[in-house]
């Protein structure tokens, strides 16, 4: 039995007497999971992006329930606010069909389902086996307030934070270079597909 003892709380909490937070968490979890499943199964590509908004928003609510409020707002800002918008732009720029597209899933579907179910089964088994009795104590001062996060980030994590800024800059430059339509190097990529066709 893989038991991680939680030394702080000797009292055992039953699954049949959930607290209010737990009920809320489970409800939002159901919505989140449903939205995620719809995201990966819907035939309409744009709807997938919208269901993704729901799923990501649900996760933001879960962060709030876990008292990590700063991360919840960052999640809303970055994911819901920018990433999904980017994805929508991508869909539009690649002329994705608006209505139902019957070929949204590839022929790999059943193999993918099998792999996903196997992964889910094994991971769930391990997780349940390991953390059946683990209890998170959400009482006390909030652990994820903006103040706490800020002080932690700029006291202990300054160097990674700055390194991350360099990474973001590199990603920015890279994205611009790659998505530029015409340039000095456009001749070679333009010739490439014709070569392929001739072959």
């Amino acid at each position: 039995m893989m038991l991680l003892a939680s030394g702080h709380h000797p009292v055992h909490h039953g699954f049949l007497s959930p607290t209010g937070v737990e009920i809320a968490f489970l409800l939002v979890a159901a919505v989140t999971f449903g939205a995620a499943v719809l995201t990966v199964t819907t035939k309409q590509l744009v709807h997938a992006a919208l269901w993704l908004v729901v799923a990501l928003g649900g996760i933001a609510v879960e962060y709030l329930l876990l008292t990590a409020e700063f991360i919840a707002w960052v999640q809303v800002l970055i994911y819901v606010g920018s990433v999904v918008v980017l994805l929508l732009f991508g869909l539009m720029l690649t002329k994705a069909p608006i209505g139902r597209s019957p070929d949204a899933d590839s022929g790999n579907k059943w193999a993918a389902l099998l792999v996903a179910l196997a992964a889910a089964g094994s991971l769930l088994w391990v997780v349940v086996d390991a953390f059946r009795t683990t209890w998170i104590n959400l009482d006390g001062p909030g652990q994820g307030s903006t103040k706490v996060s800020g002080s932690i980030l700029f006291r202990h994590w300054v160097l990674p934070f700055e390194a991350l800024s360099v990474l973001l800059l590199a990603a920015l430059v890279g994205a611009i270079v790659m998505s530029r339509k015409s340039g000095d190097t456009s001749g070679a990529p333009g010739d490439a597909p014709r070569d392929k066709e001739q072959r």
Partner: protein
Amino acid sequence: MTTTTLAVLVPLLPFLGAAAGLLLGRTAPGYVRPLAVLPTLAAFVLAVVVAVDQGGGKSIDASRRLTPTGSVPIDLALHLDGFAVLVAVLVGLVATCVQLYSTGYLRDDPRYPSYAALVSLFTSAMLLVVYSGDLMVLLVGWEIMGICSYFLVGHYWETPEARAASLKAFLVTKLGDVPFLIGLFALATDAGTFRITGVVQAALTGGIDHPTLIALLLLAGVAGKSAQFPLHTWLPDAMAGPTPVSALIHAATMVAAGIYFVARLLPVFAASAAAMTVLAVMAAVTMVGSALAALAQDDIKRVLAYSTIGQLGYMSGALAVGDRGAAVFHLLSHGAFKALLFLAAGVIIHAAGTNSLSAMSRMDGLAKRIPDAYWTMTVALLALAAIPPFAGFFSKEAVLSAAEHTALGDSTVAPQGTGWIVLIAGLLTALLTAAYAMRLWLLAFRGKGAPAPDHGRQPVAMNAVLWVLAIPSIGFGLTTGYLDDWFDGHALTPALTTSVLSTGVALVGGLVTYATWRHTSALAARTPIGAVAAHPEADGGLVEEEAIASHTPAYGDIASAYDPADPGRLLLGPLHRHAATGFHLDAVYRTLFVRPVLAAASLVRFLDREVVETYVQGAGALPRWLGAAVRKAQTGNVQTYLSALLAGSAVLALVAVVLANANAGS
């Protein structure tokens, strides 16, 4: 400068000349001729100075040990005695003459720079062999000569004859060199030193434990280098090289190296009566066989090549009866007149446009076209036939009288039987030598038929050299009285019995040939024959190359031609067919060695192609099938790959978890 310093310079100068010639050959063609001639000439002059300094007195020894070389030390040693200094003078003289001659003979040859450098290198190596007082250093020169000979025989490598001849020369001499090397090691192990003086000392005091074995091993190398039976077959074929090369290497110096080596180490050989007997039999077979073969050859240079083998047989015979003075005396005089013969033959080939005696015998007035070659060739042939008072008479007399002394028991260095063998074979060969010399002279200069083609005057360098070499051919015999002091002290003056006998048989041989020729030459007009090279303006080298290349297509054989006007054909009778091919020795070698090797090679080829290859193919087939199966999985679809990857990860994770639980539960 001391004599030792001068002697060191003698081999060094041609070596430096060769290096400079090779380096500057392409960039500064103007320097090639001076670089070829001047160092050799300087070496010759220095060799004369060394000889005068040494003066035939006590031998001069000098050595320097560069580095310790294990159990038996190797020294850079000089050993200058009467033999060494005189042979060095001969080498210098012939090499200088040949270099001068080559400037005219290979006037337009594009490969002249490398040719001249190789000749210089060869000269240097020969001088090293002559002066060296250490057997290992001698071996270095010995092997350099071998490789130079290979390159120079193959000078006309465009012709298949030259390629085959160079390979054959190299392989046959190497066949002798392997036992030679083993013999040298055995000798050094027994004597405890590589120094010649030490080895000779050990041999004289009985310090050599296995004299017969060592002597026989060394004799194999000597037979290869000096073209003695049964390793002589490379020499006639080596005539595919340019004539100056034949003169230098295959007449005067390299083939003499073997004789010179035995002369140096004669006490080692004399310690074994069996070795002396083998040497005598070898010499006798070589002499008689080569003289018969020479009588049947059609190519003028092949006649001379066989005569070289025969004269080397005389030297071997002299060594077999233990008189190295006579051997080296004959080596010196033979070197002079044989070089002259070859160089004159080069002029004749150039002037006649063919190397075939049959073709020459149908030309009128060849002698008038080339008077210098005519007169000097006549002198050299008289010397070869040992007619007094030319040089050959005195040296051959020395050999025969030495054999007579041994046969009659006056000299006890060698077994008495060897004396008889050498004496009888020598007299028989004297008869045959005179016969083929006469035949050569008659066919070449007394032809009847169409006038000889006019190719203009021969270059002055070539003609001058002929006269320079004619001087020792005529007058060298007069030095007999002085020379014996330079050697072991045996008298070299002719004895009455052998002189009369040998001169008598030589005259008989010459006269019989003349009579036969008178009889056969009438037939010449009836059977036209002849092929002449088509470049009258070209230099000698090109004419000779074409003559050699065209001999087989024109006459059906490299060595002989079907010519009823040939006196040799009548003289030899049924033997002629066999003598023309060198008594089928090449065919014997082909049957004994070449065929089995070829058969073994084809067997190996079959095994490799059909047997080994099958296994290799089989071993390759399985991976190929596996590869084809795996290739089917490479669909290019990233999602398929990822599915397999993640499925594998899931399976691994499951296995890990199950195993962990099972272990925890147990």
